[in-house]
């Protein structure tokens, strides 16, 4: 068991890759075996993630040096800096790992029935596993170039999966937009990485952070990195691709795409808090991120109001919710240098944002799965052509209501638990931001109530009279999300203490991140 945990961080990335390479071979022989292997593999990975999370929270940062003579040997003898690629897993990484593990399992379970009858399933599962491996790699790696490589894995497999339904022109265009945006964003990331490499001749995040001088070139690199990752996560000036992409992908993929966006947000935070840390012009950068957040909240919700397509509505809601997280992180970053402010409300803001990340993945995931279930049965996403579905699809209606209430931040659901943390801490920083946030939440509620009434209530439309409830595996997938949402809503304090608080501490503690890598060398 100890060896398993010692190697767990690499196994979490390598096992999905191994299964992905095996899937085409197994799939040629038997479909059932393939599905079983995928599910068993991802469950094993999820188990490893939880074991690793426990270990990291108890024993501190976990490092793994690839190809060295011992996993913990970060700096070889005779060198002053890390040479090899190092996986560095701290509280935030395992937190994101838990998000990816839960969401990927649910996505696979949901796909089992929603993909039934489609051609090309072998390749679908292969790409899905590659995307999961890429997301794990993004959150676990401690090396900037490695981050870029995994970013590319997620974007290429994601784009191919968005275009999965080749009979619709829309999905091809969605895939095209996704890959163009991702390719440009990741090339910008690579350019920024090369600017950093040019000055310090280093690629490891911890070592770079230790050497960081914050010269003009570093500032240029920072601006490019913020722009690229904001583009990748759909922050507002670059949000145009997001609704086109999310609305046309198979829903199980959309759920994973949300997680990948979260991983981009994680990368942004890793760069802001750890790579640059206190050397930043904290207030300026913090306010830039807050501005992106506020714009995302505002534009996301106003665009959501006028949508008639249910998936596009939820996609714009995603833009809006990621605004909340950006505001939380921005406030945390703005007060990072100021110890009293950080202690009184800064860490709370960061905790709220981190907690909102997992909640966002859960409730938006649930909403997308519901939208997918509706599409699976009636074949349209247009709200104006739905009506009375609640009479026959009772579970689906209940899940939609649950997701909508959680998303608009009503107690006692998880959205409330995280939004209240953001509200009360941001209020101490700047009251206007909180007021905007509450307004946006109210409009969100209005949007969802309208959508719920037009889709689920009213008289049963004659053409939908013989619509049945969706298959059991789809219900099961939605139930997993729903149960977790309710648990998180009922016991938010527990969750915050277990996983959110360690993640926050890891994010604001730049010194221990650096010391784990640089070790004895002063």
């Amino acid at each position, binding site marked *: 068991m100890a060896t398993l945990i010692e190697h767990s961080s690499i196994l979490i990335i390598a096992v999905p890759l191994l299964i992905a390479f095996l899937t085409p071979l197994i799939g040629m022989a038997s479909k059932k075996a393939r599905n079983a292997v995928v599910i068993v593999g991802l469950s094993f990975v999820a188990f490893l993630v939880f074991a690793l999370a426990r270990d990291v929270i108890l024993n501190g940062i976990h490092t793994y040096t690839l190809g060295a003579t011992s996993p913990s040997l970060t700096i070889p003898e005779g060198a002053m800096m890390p040479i090899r690629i190092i996986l560095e897993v701290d509280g935030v990484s395992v937190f994101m790992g838990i998000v990816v593990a839960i969401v990927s399992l649910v996505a696979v379970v949901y796909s089992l029935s929603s993909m039934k009858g489609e051609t090309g399933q072998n390749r679908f599962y292969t790409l899905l596993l590659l995307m999961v491996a890429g997301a794990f790699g993004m959150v676990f790696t401690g090396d900037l*170039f490695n981050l870029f*490589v995994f970013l*590319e894995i997620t974007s*290429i497999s994601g*784009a*191919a999966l968005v*275009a999965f339904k*080749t009979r619709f*022109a*829309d999905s*091809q*265009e*969605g*895939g*095209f937009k996704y*890959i*163009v945006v991702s*390719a*440009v964003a990741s*090339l910008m990331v*690579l*350019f920024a990485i*090369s600017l950093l*490499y*040019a000055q310090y*001749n280093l*690629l490891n995040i911890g070592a770079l952070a230790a050497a960081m001088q914050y010269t003009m070139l570093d500032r240029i690199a920072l601006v490019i990195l913020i722009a690229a990752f904001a583009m990748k996560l759909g922050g507002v000036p670059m949000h*145009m691709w997001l*609704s*086109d992409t999310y*609305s*046309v992908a198979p829903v199980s993929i959309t759920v994973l795409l949300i997680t990948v966006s979260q991983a981009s947000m994680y990368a942004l935070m890793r760069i802001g808090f750890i790579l640059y840390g206190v050397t930043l012009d904290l207030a300026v950068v913090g306010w830039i991120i807050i501005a992106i957040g506020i714009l995302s909240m505002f534009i996301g919700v106003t*665009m959501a109001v006028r949508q008639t397509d249910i998936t*596009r509505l939820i996609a*714009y809601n995603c833009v809006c919710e990621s605004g909340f997280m950006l505001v939380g992180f921005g406030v945390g970053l703005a007060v990072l240098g100021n110890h009293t402010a950080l202690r009184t409300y800064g860490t709370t803001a960061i905790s709220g944002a981190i907690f909102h990340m997992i909640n966002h993945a859960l409730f938006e995931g649930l909403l997308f799965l519901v939208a997918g279930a509706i599409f699976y049965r009636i074949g349209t996403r247009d709200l104006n052509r739905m009506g009375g579905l609640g009479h026959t699809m009772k579970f689906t209606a209940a899940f939609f209501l649950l997701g909508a209430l959680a998303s608009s931040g009503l107690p006692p659901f998880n959205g409330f638990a995280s939004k209240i943390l953001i509200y009360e801490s941001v209020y101490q920083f700047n009251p206007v931001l909180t007021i905007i946030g509450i307004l946006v939440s109210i409009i969100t509620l209005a949007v969802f109530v309208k959508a719920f009434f037009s889709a689920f209530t009213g008289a049963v439309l004659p053409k939908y009279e013989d619509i049945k409830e969706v298959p059991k595996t789809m219900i099961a997938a939605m139930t997993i999300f729903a149960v977790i949402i309710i648990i998180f809503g009922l016991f938010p304090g527990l969750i915050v203490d277990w996983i959110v608080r360690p993640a926050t501490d890891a994010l604001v503690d730049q010194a221990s991140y650096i010391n784990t890598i640089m070790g004895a060398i002063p």
Partner: protein
Amino acid sequence: MIETLIRNFPLVAAVVLMGIGLYILIFKRNLIKIVMGITILSSSVNLFLVTLGYRTGGIAPIYTDAPEGLMVLPVVQALTLTNIVIAVATSALILSLVIRIYRHTGSLDSKKSRRMKG
């Protein structure tokens, strides 16, 4: 000024290529041209990376029958190799998507094919 410009010529070339790539991506509407823009952009980043690793008078970092002299930096070359393969992969996938879009809409103009409006 001119002297630094000549001295840093590869860097200038990389920046100019990047400008061309971004210009294409922002202003051109033909889907194939967008693919070209991405490829040019990635070439510019590759050029930039390789330039960073050059040492004056350096030799290739291979010891087989190597002449005397400093070796140029190997890590950037590995990074460039990785990025080249990634660029190939990306353009293959984008081209297949473009072919599909062309089959569906009969046009390569992004304005015409863009039916989805927010």
